[in-house]
């Protein structure tokens, strides 16, 4: 009976709750049980709210019992939230020791919207410290492991969110994406993840990394589930000055439609070739064939300045980040070190930041400080902003020739823990395909497209759409999901090995 809960889509769980076939409390308890069972191996969560989640679930059940209409199709469905979003019920740490135990006095807009929609918040998920990383290894509280292979990274920075989904600990999760932090981990865990158009989802109450690039989005097991969550969290918010005051694209109906006939799908020449694993390229090519068979027209497009996207990103992002993280100054919240009446405020500040930040965060702050410092500003930060213009122009031209742009999500599948920790540049290269969307503000999603035949690990297919063309991302994603599932005979995640102690164990052949 409970196995049925785990394998069900989030929208199906919502339907059962609304129909009174299953209670939100029963469903929530099942996911809490799975969390208790597999967390020692996976470490997807930094905090779990057993009591609060069951209380929220009971409230939804009570509303239904009283004959009320439930506020959304996902009312009563549990969700895991990246620990970069402020939520009053649990600590908000950003994966950093400098914020260990800190509690926000308010909820992020995304959290508020989910609570209003009746979603049940299970807990806060692990991430790279301040979302700085692509492996979840830079978390100040230890790494998350990939449920497909516990010796491997789940990707990052939203590694905890996607691992929770892949380990059946939650049917839905919230991630954030600054240079690929939703899409790359989604690819590495065989799950669906979408970065909405910049400004589509409010950043109010989300701890800032690089403000011109950060965007919050849904993580799920199916395209329609991601779209349903997207519709709940998106929308104009006066509390975020970069929030777009426009209607949310109809992403759920696009996800249910999945018709790509006549669509022009542009393969970006620059996002492939040298440095890409053969198994990744193979699955990508096979998936393109499927889309062509489904009626799409495949065209090749060139975005020459994408070759400079990584360099551009690794100047703009650290510059914005070093400014944003200046607020962790040991004065009003968070860690304070050396406050002994002898040291001055500035000495306490230096000591606290030295002790509270991890290696990758320090590396990026130093890099950003360099790029912004007098004498280097024009050559580095100023040039990067000009290059960003050229990348945006490339994208604009490409969308004259194609309705969506596609590429692999990452050049490789999930690597082993520790493999790249001492080689930052190697880790940064994992973001090659995802960065351009953030620089240009595009909507982009990652969809599972098979297992690399060489290592048996998930590969992701990226779909990028113009600003506010989020529905196109879901339309193509849904087509892929339909065609691929027909081949596989079910979802890709069904092929993931069972975790020891998993509540699904009885079900795995």
């Amino acid at each position, binding site marked *: 009976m409970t196995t049925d809960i785990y394998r069900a889509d989030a929208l199906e769980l919502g339907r059962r709750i609304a129909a009174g076939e299953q209670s939100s409390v029963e469903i929530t308890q099942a996911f809490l049980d799975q969390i208790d069972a597999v967390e020692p191996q996976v470490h997807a969560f930094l905090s779990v709210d057993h009591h609060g989640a069951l209380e929220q679930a009971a409230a939804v059940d009570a509303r239904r019992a009283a004959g009320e209409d439930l506020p959304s199709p996902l009312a009563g469905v549990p969700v895991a939230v990246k620990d970069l979003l402020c939520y009053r019920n649990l600590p908000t740490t950003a994966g950093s020791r400098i914020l260990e135990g800190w*509690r926000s*006095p*308010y909820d992020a807009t995304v959290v508020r919207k989910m609570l209003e929609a009746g979603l049940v918040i299970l807990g806060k998920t692990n991430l790279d410290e301040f979302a700085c990383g692509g492996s979840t290894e830079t978390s100040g509280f230890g790494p998350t492991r990939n449920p497909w292979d516990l010796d491997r990274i789940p990707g990052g920075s939203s590694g905890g969110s996607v691992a929770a989904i892949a380990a059946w600990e939650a049917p839905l999760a919230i991630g954030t994406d600054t240079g690929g932090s939703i899409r790359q981990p989604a690819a590495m865990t065989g799950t669906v993840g979408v970065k909405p158009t*910049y400004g589509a989802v409010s950043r109010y109450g989300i701890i800032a990394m690089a403000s*011109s690039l950060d965007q919050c989005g849904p993580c799920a097991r199916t395209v329609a589930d991601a779209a349903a969550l997207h519709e709940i969290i998106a929308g104009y918010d*006066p509390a975020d*000055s*970069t929030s777009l005051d426009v209607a949310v694209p109809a992403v759920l109906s696009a996800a249910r439609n999945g018709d790509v006939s006549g669509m022009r799908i542009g393969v970006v020449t620059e996002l492939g070739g040298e440095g890409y694993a053969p198994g990744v390229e193979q699955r990508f090519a096979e998936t393109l064939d499927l889309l062509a068979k489904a009626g799409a027209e495949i065209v090749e497009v060139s975005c020459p300045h994408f070759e*400079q996207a*990584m*360099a*551009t990103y*690794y*100047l703009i992002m650290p510059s914005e980040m070093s400014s944003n993280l*200046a607020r962790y*100054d040991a*004065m*009003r*919240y*968070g860690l*304070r070190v050396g*406050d002994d*009446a*002898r*040291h*001055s*405020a*500035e*000495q*306490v500040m*230096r*000591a606290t*930041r030295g002790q509270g*930040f991890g290696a990758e965060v*320090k*590396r990026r*702050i*130093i*890099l950003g*400080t*360099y790029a912004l410092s007098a004498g280097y500003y024009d*050559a*580095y930060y*100023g*040039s*990067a*902003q*000009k*290059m*960003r*213009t*050229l990348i*945006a122009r490339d994208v604009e031209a490409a969308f004259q020739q194609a309705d969506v742009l596609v590429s692999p999500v990452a050049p490789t599948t999930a690597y082993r823990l520790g493999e790249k920790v001492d080689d*930052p*540049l190697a880790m*940064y290269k994992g973001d090659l395909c995802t960065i351009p969307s953030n*620089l*240009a*503000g595009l909507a982009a999603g990652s969809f599972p497209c098979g297992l690399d035949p060489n290592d048996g690990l998930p590969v992701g297919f990226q779909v990028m759409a113009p*600003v506010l063309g989020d529905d196109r991302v879901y339309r193509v994603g849904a087509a892929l999901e339909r065609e691929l599932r027909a081949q596989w005979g079910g979802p890709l995640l069904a092929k993931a090995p069972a975790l020891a102690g998993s509540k699904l164990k009885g079900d795995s052949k």
Partner: protein
Amino acid sequence: MAVSPQDVSRLADLARIELTDQELAELAPQIDVILDAVASVSEVADLDIAPISHAVQQTNVMREDICTPSFAPEAMLAGAPAVVEQRFRVPRIIDDSNAQ
């Protein structure tokens, strides 16, 4: 253009981060490698291209000038490292030059 541990030390000082000698020694070559990898953007430094700070056109936003409730002082102080008389207590702000 090799970045030395002394250069990193100066940057860390600007960024108000205390780094150990070992961290300085490790960071210098890493920053050097990263700067090498990103230096290619400077090819457009002298070109007449409008720089952008946000991908999506931004306009300034005004809100109505209406009073809204503030957070209670207790809520704001709950996460403070040190509190005295309903205020944030901070270390002394003047450096003792000998303690640098």
